[in-house]
């Protein structure tokens, strides 16, 4: 921080004061203010409060590993390519959990939140309004390039390059020249999805794709001719053979009908067949089932024209012994990729964290594909039980005493409970 920065900051603080003075003095003359009764806090109360504040700060800062909670209300940093060039216009998102009051019931005071910002021309970003002593992960996306790193107060983030997809369409007559392909990944995204036109032989390449599986949508003008799943194996996106497109058979969207066609995928990108899905659309909810290929058709509000933005809030669903969890997602152009995350029952053992006996806990779980989730509960005889999303994620355990512990996890789907996950926390 240069002295010029310090001087500017002081000038802004002075300016804040002067603007406030103009308002306050014009509202009520200062002489009147002087006549009002001003409550004075006893000196002993000030000293006691100061003592408690110092105690609270000490407790919040103490951690049992190298994890440092975020302090100061902000996270700043720079986003770079692998070659070290700054990345302007990248979307930076932080997903955090925090305990607002160190001595209260965690169920009432633990919260999860999400903040986002965009990098400036020098690749720098600033995330603000971060609650004190929060912990979490930062996600960065720019034209498919991606990064996922634990949050720190000052960060340098290097993006992994974007994915690509090669494929071939098979069409009859002059249909090929009218077709366009588009890749759609899971969840929300700012801006359009990547598109490409096939060459006369039907071959196409899509670049700048986000990580994970998705849906290849083949369009003819504003009509969707066909949608097929794209799987990802070892970071490489693949299609199952050439995509056949036939003239005259349109699977959607029909501009005259307010219906949405979707594809239901599990966390591995595989279609989920015969699965009941509960959803809320604006002010009404309903249940629908996917067909044998994971396809869905559901009808939205008839007053919404085709192609407009629709928000779906998916409820938890169940299939067999497993629970699934969805998220709020935007469905545009009436074609949706709905990625669901299986939940796994987890049993853990915790005795102490950093010398603190644990009777209750808050568990923040951050994954690549779903909003942050916060679970709270009690520890009985050193054991606890909870549900947790499968797939790769980071767990932050927050305790009433302000201890924080981070565990990287990759949980496979199973109906067997997961045991001893937090054994590492026992001291």
């Amino acid at each position: 921080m240069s002295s010029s920065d310090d001087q500017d900051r002081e000038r802004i603080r002075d300016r804040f004061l002067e603007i406030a003075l103009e308002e306050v003095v014009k509202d009520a003359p200062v002489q009147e203010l002087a006549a009002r009764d001003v409550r004075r806090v006893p000196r002993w109360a000030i000293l006691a409060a100061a003592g408690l504040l110092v105690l609270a700060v000490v407790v919040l800062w103490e951690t049992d590993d190298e994890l440092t909670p975020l302090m100061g209300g902000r996270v700043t940093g720079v986003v770079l390519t692998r070659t070290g060039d700054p990345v302007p216009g990248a979307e930076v998102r932080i997903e955090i959990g925090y305990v607002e009051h160190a001595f209260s019931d965690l169920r009432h005071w633990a919260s999860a939140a999400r903040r986002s910002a965009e990098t400036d021309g020098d690749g720098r970003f600033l995330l603000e309004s971060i609650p004190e002593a929060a912990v979490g992960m930062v996600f960065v996306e720019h034209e498919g390039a991606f990064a996922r790193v634990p949050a720190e107060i000052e960060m340098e983030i290097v993006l992994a390059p974007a994915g690509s997809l090669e494929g071939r369409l098979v069409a009859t007559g002059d249909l090929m020249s009218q077709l366009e392909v588009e890749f759609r990944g899971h969840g929300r995204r700012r801006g359009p999805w990547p598109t490409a036109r096939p060459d006369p032989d039907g071959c196409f390449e899509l670049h700048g794709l986000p990580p994970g599986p998705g849906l290849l949508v083949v369009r003819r003008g504003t009509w969707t001719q066909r949608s097929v799943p794209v799987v990802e194996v070892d970071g490489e996106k693949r299609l199952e053979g050439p995509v056949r497109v036939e003239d005259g058979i349109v699977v959607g969207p029909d501009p005259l009908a307010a219906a949405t066609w979707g594809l239901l995928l599990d966390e591995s990108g595989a279609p989920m067949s015969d699965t009941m899905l509960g959803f809320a659309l604006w002010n009404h909810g309903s249940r629908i089932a996917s067909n044998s290929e994971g396809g869905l058709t559901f009808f939205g509000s008839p007053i919404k024209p085709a192609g407009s933005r629709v928000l779906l809030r998916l409820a938890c669903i169940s299939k067999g012994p497993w629970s699934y969890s969805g998220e709020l997602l935007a469905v545009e152009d009436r074609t949706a990729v709905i990625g669901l995350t299986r939940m796994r029952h987890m049993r853990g053992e915790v005795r102490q964290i950093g010398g603190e006996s644990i009777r209750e806990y808050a568990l923040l779980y951050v994954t690549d594909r779903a909003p942050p989730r916060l679970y709270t509960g009690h520890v009985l005889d050193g054991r606890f039980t909870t549900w947790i999303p499968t797939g790769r994620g980071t767990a932050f355990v927050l305790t009433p005493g302000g201890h924080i512990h981070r565990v990287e996890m990759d949980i496979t789907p199973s109906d067997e409970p997961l045991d001893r996950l937090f054994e590492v926390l026992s001291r």
Partner: protein
Amino acid sequence: MITEARTDIIVRRHRLGVWRYLRLLGCDGPTADDLAQETFLALMRTSFEDRDPRATAAWLRRKARFIFLEHIRKNRRRRETRLADMTDAVWDEYAGDDGGEGYRHALRECLALLPPRSRQVIEFRYGGGVGRDEIAERIGLKPNGVKTLLQRIRAKLRQCVEGKLRR
């Protein structure tokens, strides 16, 4: 798209906060008026969801900041971008939760604690817009003395207000 009635409620609740924030970013009064109006017009044009006043205030501040920076870019004043970042930090520190109401409340209490002459100088300067030379004449100081006195009073007020906000 939010309804007109809802927009009206939002405007009434957040108008002052947005205007003050724009003033703090460096706008003069009329510019802050214009940009605040643009901010609320942007609100009406988007598919914004009014979930709670705090989130709405944060959204409006972000939008106002964006509109302010667009305004600055047109004038090619890059330094303001850095100042805007600092302003945000100061805003969060002083007014992040309540649009500056708490700060002003604390300021009223601190003003009441000033000695009579200091209160009088503040009232001349910020209540009546009296110039430094005229204040000097009224209270029998040299103009430079008034400048120093005002600096000292402001420093004292800042210290007092910041102490109250930290509590």
